[in-house]
């Protein structure tokens, strides 16, 4: 009974904290409005104009399909990168030698601009969903890898010893102690990787004419339709925010209740 109450309280607090987020976004909208008033509708349509364009777009079911397609490709790439990156990161975190070998590769992957990957992938895979997904995956793989590896390498070895002294087997130790500690470095990396996946996916769609939000942006650019371009950008950002705050952040708060408890009152609310 009290468990339900605690959970309801936490969900309520999470939803209530959206006000603070909205306040931040309002400041952004105000700056946008200022820009609009300075340069006029042709260069920068006002937030309300953009919102009404977005509402028009959303009335069309085709839009939902397009946003869904982009989000699906970005998420697919993200999931692939998160899986491979976490596995490789855990391995590297445990073995300093693997880490030393992997470091330069990470720098290498980070150093190649995403645009170069898109060109290569277009040649290899053609202008399809595969190229978009692969671009998203490659763009966020190093971020996840570094997050996981740092999380494991920076773990408290004292807890490992404690668990060994308590007679816990290695697999349970990995899951209960090491992975649990890794989460604290992994989650920020995942949040960043998710954003990167969306950005990379839209860019790949735009360059490869692979449909989705990216291609609509290309069309808006061709028509010099700034309001439509902004509306599409707003739509993709909304999709990103809903994935992050709908899936990733609730997952994080589920695992990190203790951090919430450790926070002083003034920071909590």
């Amino acid at each position, binding site marked *: 009974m009290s468990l339900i109450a605690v959970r309801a309280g936490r969900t309520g607090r999470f939803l209530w904290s959206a006000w603070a987020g909205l306040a931040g976004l309002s400041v952004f909208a105000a700056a946008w409005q200022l820009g609009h008033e300075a340069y006029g509708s042709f260069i920068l349509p006002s937030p309300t104009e953009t919102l009404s364009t977005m509402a028009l777009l959303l009335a069309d079911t085709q839009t939902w399909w397009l946003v869904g397609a982009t989000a699906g490709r970005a998420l697919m790439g993200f999931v692939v990168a998160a899986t491979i990156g976490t596995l490789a990161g855990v391995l590297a975190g445990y073995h300093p030698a693997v880490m030393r070998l992997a470091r330069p590769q990470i720098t290498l992957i980070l150093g190649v601009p995403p645009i170069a990957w898109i060109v290569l992938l277009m040649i290899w895979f053609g202008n399809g969903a595969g190229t978009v997904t692969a671009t998203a995956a490659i763009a966020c793989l190093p971020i996840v890898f570094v997050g996981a590896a740092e999380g494991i390498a920076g773990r408290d070895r004292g807890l490992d010893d404690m668990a060994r002294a308590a007679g816990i087997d290695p697999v349970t130790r990995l899951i209960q102690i090491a992975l649990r500690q890794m989460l604290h470095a992994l989650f920020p990396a995942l949040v960043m990787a998710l954003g990167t996946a969306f950005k990379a996916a839209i860019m790949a769609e735009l360059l490869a004419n692979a449909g989705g939000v990216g291609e609509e942006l290309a069309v808006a650019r061709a028509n010099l339709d700034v309001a439509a371009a902004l509306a599409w950008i707003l739509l993709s950002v909304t999709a990103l925010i809903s994935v992050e705050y709908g899936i990733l952040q609730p997952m994080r708060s589920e695992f990190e209740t203790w951090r919430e*408890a450790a926070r002083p009152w003034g920071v909590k609310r």
Partner: protein
Amino acid sequence: MGSEAVNMLRLDHVGHAFLGRTVLDAIDLEVEAGELVALVGPSGSGKSTLAHIAAGLLEPRQGHVTRGYRGHAVIFQEPRLMPWATAGDNIAFGLRRHHFKRSVCRQKVLAVADRVALDARDLEKFPSQLSGGMRQRTAIARALVAEPDFVFFDEPFTALDVALKRRMQDIVIDTAAATGQSGLFITHDLSEAVRIAHRIVVMERHGRGIAGSRTVPLSPGMRDDRMVFETAQAFLIGDRLFAHVNDCDERSLA
């Protein structure tokens, strides 16, 4: 005599080195059933390393460790609690390998928490919400919850204030007396050793073997403060064995 049969822990010629630097050499030590042995030695003499080897956390470079007990627990210098788990779950972690039913676990956790004077309400809290003393008590409860027949104490009460330290020592004395538990208690505080141990073993400087051992008169629960103080003073002043115990040469040999 048959004393071989009741050895709960036996170290034969144990030695260890870190990166080629010898930290322990030719250590022979025995702990009998129901005996609480305090291991004292100057700071940096390798006491903790020895405890970790005896508890199986480190592989010795030389020598053998023979364990005659069924299960052991280790209480570390720091609490080493999992920050993401409540105090209750941290204590229950000590029971994990036994695969008890949830209700049984809960019962055992509550019982041991009561013994170390932790409130049932405190069990719901995370380590970050507990005071330093409560954290260490949680760690002690985690070690005792599985009712091990041997406990390694690695200077567990160093960070506690005087009153709390006394209370923790009493818990150790009472538990050992009630359950017949044996243990190896690492400390650099001679009066602590005199208060709780049956026998005090003194390490040589720089871990070069065991200098010798002294049996403390009376049994642990029966000693009063005056007796503890006088015995410790007598050891320090009158007994050559303890002459180097309070030296503090933090790893002068490198």
